[in-house]
């Protein structure tokens, strides 16, 4: 995934039907660009497919064996 450009940002804003003041675009580009960066570093097909939200049962399955 290439780095987010200002043109790509403007295209996304248009697609979302939003009006954003010009002087806020740099902030939005940084916010979105920084957050998107990890996605480009991962082959998502190698990530184990788990449910899309963190959940716990009493045994805490995502965080190993419960410490007694």
């Amino acid at each position, binding site marked *: 995934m290439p780095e987010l450009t200002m043109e790509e*940002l403007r295209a*996304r*804003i248009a697609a*979302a039907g*939003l009006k*954003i*003041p010009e*002087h*806020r675009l*740099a*902030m*939005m580009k*940084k*916010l*979105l660009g*920084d*957050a*998107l*960066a*990890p*996605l480009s*570093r*991962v082959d*998502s097909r190698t*990530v*184990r*497919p*788990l*449910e*899309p*939200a*963190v*959940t*716990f*049962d*009493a045994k*805490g399955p*995502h*965080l*190993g*064996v*419960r*410490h007694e």
Partner: protein
Amino acid sequence: MSEALHYTTIRELGAAYRKREVSPVEVTRALLARIEKLDPALHAFVTLTPERALADAKAAEDALRKGDARPLLGIPIGHKDIYLTRGIRSTGGSALFADWIPEDESTVVRQWAEAGSIMMGKLITHEFAFGLQFPGHRFPAARNPWNQDHIPGGSSSGSGAALSAGFLHGATGSDTGGSIRGPAAFCGITGLKPTYGRCSRAGVMTLSWTLDHTGPMARTAEDCAYLLQPIAGHDTADPASSTAAVDDYVKALGGSVRGLRIGVPRNYFFEDADADLVRAFEGALGVLRSLGAEVRDITIPSIDLSRSFFLILAAEAFAYHEHDLRTKPELYGEVLRERIMTGALVTASEYVQAQRIRMQVCADVAEVMKSVDVLATPTTPKPATPFKVAYDPELAFPRTNMPPFNLTGQPTLALPCGFSTSGLPVSMQLSGRAFEEATVLRLGHAYQKATDWHTRRPPV
């Protein structure tokens, strides 16, 4: 009332009541006078409720006379203003709800009331728990009691400032990306983000459904244990609420920490950290070692990927706010409006990938926590941000060390561990396994028995 009682612990205040050294009404009147004197500069409260506080205090006095032993009886508390309070305005720190008086009440508000606490009022929050109020906003931003030119952290800004200034003895916070732990760090107090699902979010304004946590803020780990006890447990009104068994958090404080295995992730958490902050953190590790804990360096392979956290937060926040943002954008604060709108720019596949990456982070942390009991990290890489920096509209979202534990949902305690060279508090965070709040509270309590950082007071 002596100055010391403004800053006494919950256990000490309860003991003073039962020895008849002081009464809840006396304490409440003294705190109201202190708030009236100091809060015009600090802006911790958005709505003060003196009549309610005095009525609660009178009820507590009556109960004490009858031998009521509830530990929170007569303890002055306040609520972050995203917690709904029946009959008392609940603004969310926003012009959108500036005059809203809800008919409902959040579960946690009810639970602390039923525990006999005294509600002093509602505490300012960053707007919708996400955006610092800029100059000209309907509500002024809270200021840091340690240095009023600095922010108190957010979004539980009023909670942090009020506890630091000695206005009350406990407060609610919420934590989506560090909103309990950040103000705890910047204000020199103690805050616990419990496990995801441990405390109810029913009746609390949403920021991000899969990242939001509710929890207690106080001045000590021991106080957090007292405050957590009545709000831990299942609530059918919160779909994410857990049915996991609830520990006795106060009783657990007495246990030893000898042999407890503490892992220090040396990747990610020290990036851009100030040298004096790292020095304070390493000193804290030395104290933990001296208490008998085994401290070792570890690595969490995927932790760097947690930067994608913002995709989840922003997309969910936009989903929650979209209608109002599109129809009444002028009622949202400067910068916050565009910050939330960033969520509209996240594609569906990017959101899904961010959630899948989150699971990778959870799996890696789970693997690490097979060999350690607690993770210790600096809460923030820098002390409290100056307002002049925070008000820079180009500042997107300052990097902190807290979001990874919103992704994993682990219980995390932030507590003071020293001061910067500029005299501002710095903090470490202790993260345990899911539902092991008792372990991090026990370790935090042991640390605070061996140190005095949590007893330092700001120059208000």
